[in-house]
């Protein structure tokens, strides 16, 4: 009896994230720095990588590339290009929590490097994520995300890191009025997928966005018209995920995008979740299928 109680207590205590480590990770998001970021993703379809100039300040992160700049933070998304400025602002309220399947722990410094603190996130018995945080700025020097098979899935490293000068990152005086997104309800997206939970949902371009999180990774499912081209994703090769065909998948170094159609709707999933999580999530979302011929003819004839 005593042994059972002890084991239960140990299990409960072990599943709780260590508050100070969470604070470290949270502080990493608030760190102020200028640098270059290398991101590599060993995606199932091949390796993708890029290097971008990155700047983080005042809770905002800005990436600058040849096509313009993009800044996010505190619910704001500001894209600036030759076409103009798109400014989106969202103001959800939710209590953040980490999925209880994760355990946060201090990692062992195996490299002997003295410039960073290592934080690891375990999922069951294996390491799902590992962060090396800069001792001075708490900037995430190295981030590693692993698949269930233990293989490295995504790696990012900040290089040429320096402290930024004390000047505003964005000139907000030139900004147009931000677009606001009001809450909306998706007709067919469930409240949970895999171990992820739907936090909230909003009106989105062409449909409804449902935002899912497990406290570590996040993704959005956009429920759109069946006739949507999925932002060009429908032209990507069709792949099988979790034994089901009909998915169109594309990886960038930082995220995966998946598009599929059901007889009545189409869906775009965008997020940073690893492949084994993606497979579990898709199993709980509407599955790809085609309308039968009679329905197709009816829809064509009568709309």
């Amino acid at each position, binding site marked *: 009896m005593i042994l059972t109680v002890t084991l239960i207590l140990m299990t409960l205590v072990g599943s709780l994230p260590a508050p100070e480590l969470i604070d470290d990770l949270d502080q990493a998001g608030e760190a102020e720095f200028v640098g270059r970021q290398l991101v590599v993703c060993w995606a199932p379809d091949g390796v993708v990588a890029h290097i971008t100039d990155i700047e983080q300040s005042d809770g905002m992160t*800005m*990436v600058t590339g040849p096509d313009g700049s993009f800044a996010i933070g505190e619910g704001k*998304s500001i894209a600036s290009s030759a076409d103009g400025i798109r400014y*989106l602002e969202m103001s959800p309220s939710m209590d953040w929590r980490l999925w209880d399947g994760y355990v946060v722990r201090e990692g062992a410094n195996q490299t002997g490097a003295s410039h960073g603190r290592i934080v690891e996130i375990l999922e069951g018995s294996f390491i799902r994520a590992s962060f090396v945080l800069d001792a001075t700025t708490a900037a995430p020097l190295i981030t590693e995300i692993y698949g269930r098979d233990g293989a490295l899935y995504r790696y990012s490293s900040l290089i040429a890191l320096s402290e930024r000068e004390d000047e505003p990152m964005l000139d907000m005086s030139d900004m147009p009025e931000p677009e606001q*997104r009001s809450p909306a309800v998706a007709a067919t997206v469930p409240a949970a997928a895999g171990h992820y939970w739907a936090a909230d949902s909003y009106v989105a371009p062409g449909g409804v966005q449902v935002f899912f999180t497990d406290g570590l990774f996040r993704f959005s499912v956009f429920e759109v018209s069946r006739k*949507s081209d999925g932002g060009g994703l429908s*032209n990507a090769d069709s792949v099988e995920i979790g034994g089901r065909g009909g998915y169109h998948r594309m990886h960038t170094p930082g995220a995966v995008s998946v598009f599929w159609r059901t007889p009545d709707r189409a869906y775009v999933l965008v997020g940073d979740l690893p492949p084994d999580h993606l497979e579990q999530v898709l199993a709980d979302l509407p599955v790809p299928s085609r309308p039968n011929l009679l329905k197709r003819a009816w*829809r064509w004839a009568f709309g």
Partner: protein
Amino acid sequence: MHPGDLLSAYVDSQLPPADRLSVESHVEECGDCRDELASITSARQSLRDLPLLEPLAGSLRLPAEVVELRPGHRRVLVAAAATVAMVVGIGFGVDGNQTVPLQLDAVVEQHVARASVDPGLNVMQVQAVANR
């Protein structure tokens, strides 16, 4: 690029050799188009297998010219009309060939804007931005 409407023409053997080869090559690689091709072929076969029904007298308001046709001719006319409807239906986007464009950038921006509010583990935010 998916062959779209060319699949219908392919099934009807109406494509020039070069287009035919192009469709065959694409279908070998693309599961969606393979399904589409199977669906069209199956529709054609179903149409051929349809029994020719005699319309009940007085059940349809048919033009006088049709009513005056002999039964055999009427069956041909009904089958032809059904064929035209099916071919046009399949060929002109019953299954969404007329697609509605979606701005993927706008979708990604909305996702990362929402994700940036997530108060925990903001370190991951940097990777989200790297999506660009």
